[in-house]
């Protein structure tokens, strides 16, 4: 296909040509960034979390007297374990993605202070006996807490647990002691220290930042006795077959209401809690998808509209070309090639614009660098879109009969 006549013709319609190229470029730039943001949200929504998310339900209990927790919690747990279908039950302070965060910063040497920049912020989870099994934590190294660990742990006046053992996630182990085994290592804060007895697979924190951050998994677990819990073991977690969760959760809530007439219960299935956490991200992702689709449609209509007008304008020239021997496919190819060139110029400009927008967003919002492959992928998408959009008007052009050449415009 000869492209010189096409370029000659386009240079006659310089302004519409520039406009359509600009439109394609802008669409390409916005599309790249929007698709990237959608991808970021989707990967956040799908972040793995090493607990048995699909068998877990939870009942929160508050408003009860902290002083009798030592007998209340074992009694409540015994009743919960008696519910048919409950495979394991335990009390815990908070859950991943529950927004209920208890953070503290620790370092690897005994002389750290809270304000030290080198410390790392962890989310603290306090486990009552049996909660590790109910959550379905997966041990990678070492051991879970034993009965002595639980019995020896309590809260004093400090906002940190009085115990010396801890479980950490794989991500904490990698961050604090890269390349070494974390087992037996100790981490410190001003007044307390904790020794790692086990490393578990990565569990998400109650609040997370964004996908790709190792800090999302800085969760540390501590044993806690019922009597010493000072009102911090308020969530009962239950594991059951996924089909039983609804029934088990309702039965558990009823049971706890009966046993604790002064208490306030609130129950949820864990997968619903997780959905809830990501609800606004999900709605943002859908809204981005909608804008992308509508914008592509507008651009496609723009191409259809403009090409239709050019076809109408050039009916006589097309007729002449047909009369002097051009076949239908030649005419079709002419418009397709023209669109290919326009889209090509548009996406080249658009890719650099997309990159620029990404740099701007990185500086002003919490957005990471866009991986390079987003650029060619959206470029190809726009190319395909252009070819599809031009097909209708181009076919109409190809159907112009040669006899038009003999008529006046």
């Amino acid at each position: 296909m000869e492209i010189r006549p096409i370029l000659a013709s386009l240079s006659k319609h310089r302004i519409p040509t520039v406009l359509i190229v600009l439109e394609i470029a802008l669409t390409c730039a916005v599309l790249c960034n929007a698709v990237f943001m959608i991808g970021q949200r989707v990967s956040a929504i799908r972040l793995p979390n090493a607990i048995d998310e699909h068998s877990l339900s939870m009942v929160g209990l508050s408003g009860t007297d902290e002083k009798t927790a030592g007998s209340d919690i074992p009694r409540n747990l015994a009743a919960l374990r008696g519910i048919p279908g409950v495979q394991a039950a335990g009390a815990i302070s908070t859950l991943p993605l529950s927004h209920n965060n208890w953070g503290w910063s620790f370092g690897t040497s005994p002389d750290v202070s809270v304000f030290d920049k080198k410390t790392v912020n962890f989310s603290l989870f306090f486990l009552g006996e049996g909660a590790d099994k109910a959550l379905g934590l997966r041990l990678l190294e070492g051991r879970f807490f034993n009965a002595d660990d639980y019995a020896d742990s309590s809260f004093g006046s400090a906002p940190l647990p009085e115990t010396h053992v801890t479980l950490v996630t794989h991500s904490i182990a990698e961050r604090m002691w890269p390349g070494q085994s974390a087992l037996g290592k100790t981490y410190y804060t001003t007044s307390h220290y904790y020794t790692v007895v086990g490393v578990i697979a990565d569990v998400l924190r109650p609040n997370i930042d964004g996908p790709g951050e190792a800090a999302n998994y800085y969760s540390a677990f501590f044993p806690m006795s019922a009597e010493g819990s000072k009102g911090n073991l308020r969530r009962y977690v239950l594991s059951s077959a996924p089909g039983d969760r609804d029934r088990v959760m309702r039965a558990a809530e009823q049971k706890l209401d009966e046993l604790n007439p002064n208490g306030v219960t609130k129950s949820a299935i864990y997968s619903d809690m997780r959905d809830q956490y990501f609800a606004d991200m999900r709605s943002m992702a859908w809204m981005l998808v909608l804008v992308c689709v509508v914008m592509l449609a507008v651009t496609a209509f723009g191409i259809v509209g403009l090409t239709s007008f050019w076809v109408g304008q050039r009916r006589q020239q097309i007729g002449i070309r047909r009369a002097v021997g051009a076949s239908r496919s030649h005419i079709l190819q002419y418009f397709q090639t023209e669109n290919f060139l326009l889209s090509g110029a548009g996406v080249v400009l658009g890719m650099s614009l997309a990159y620029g927008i990404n740099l701007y967003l990185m500086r002003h919002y919490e957005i990471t660098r866009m991986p390079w492959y987003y650029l060619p992928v959206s470029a190809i998408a726009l190319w395909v879109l252009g070819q599809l959009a031009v097909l209708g008007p181009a076919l109409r052009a190809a159907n112009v009969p040669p006899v038009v050449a003999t008529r006046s415009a």
Partner: protein
Amino acid sequence: MFTYYLDLARRSLRRTPVLTGLMVLAIGLGIGASMTMLTVLHVMTDDPMPGRSAQLYTPHLDPLPLDHKRRGDGPDPTADLTWPDAMALLAARRGVRQAAMAGGSLLLRPERAGLRPFYVAGRYATADFFALFGVPFERGGGWSAAADAADAQVVVLSDALARKLFGAGNAVGQTVHLGEHDFRVIGVTADWAPKPLFYADQTGTQYSDADLFFLPLSVAVSQKFQVSGNQSGWGKGDSMSLTSANMSWLQFWVQLDTPAQVAAYRQYLVDYSAQQKALGRFQRPPTNAKLYGLMGWLAHENLVPNDVDLQLWLALGFLFVCMLNIVALLLAKFLRRGGEISVRRALGARRRDIFVQLGIESALIGVAGGVLGLAIAQLGLWSIRQRPDDYARLAQMDVPMLLGTLALAVVASVLAGLLPSWRACRVAPALQLKTM
């Protein structure tokens, strides 16, 4: 002439219904998306206390030690006041009115049969709170400064909570069991919740929160009630006591009516800081003390989430794509009418006349697009109201935004029509007429 041009425009648009439809649709979609997001931003940055916000100020001190390092992601400890500072500012009475406050969530045990205990969010405040913010009362009223000093166990309920607890009857004089203590109800507020809840701690969801009860701050402190919101401590080994001089957790607002009062209060804050520094309690320069106006404070806090910002940019980018689209289509359309334009020119129409005629045609597309855009924006706002976000329920269009939508549509389409009209009115009539 105007009506004639209007008629011409109508005829011309009708001659190409598909193209006209595409242009109207494009401007409608662009305007609809932009106005949806502009409306969200507009309601989120709106004045929560119209008529009163200009007199409301919040003082901020810097009691942090010199070696204190703030973590990048953590909340700002100087956004709130410590108990001793708040009490000193309160006792100084330098403003027309002033109040210290903090949020709290307490367990409420209803006496009414059939109601289980539940948690309820409210505010611990000092006596002037109600007069300072002009809280409307349905029955009764607030408490006095004397009640603050005496730790009186009194409470003001919101009308929603009063109705839930006591039905249609008079709640004033009744007793409420709140946070395991008995409180006597002395007032019921009318429906009142500023959006955002500007006086609350910045960690909350300020667009959907409302206070359901109000009780004296002194009682909350003496009963050690739980405080919601950020509590930043910086003392070494100091207990997390609410009255500690090394923990900030209180919000403070003051009413200042004249610029002179504002200047005097600003000076007072610096003097107070200097005095505390002389006493050895403060270590940083006294000029770190700040006084924000209400709108200034909201701007400083920047409550608008990044997602809303990004969505606005996206919508504006989309509008720009739509406009480019319309420019291209109008250009094609106008240039194709070279013959018609040349005939008019030959019959004596000036370039300016052609320009105006084509401008009116663009504006007509804008009006149609604006109406469509308004419908799309309403649909967009409806869909935002269905979303789970904190601000979702606020997404409603008011009259200025409604008129703004139409204006933006017409301006956008006239702008889009400028270049095509200019090109079209410059065709050479003789050349065109010859080819006809």
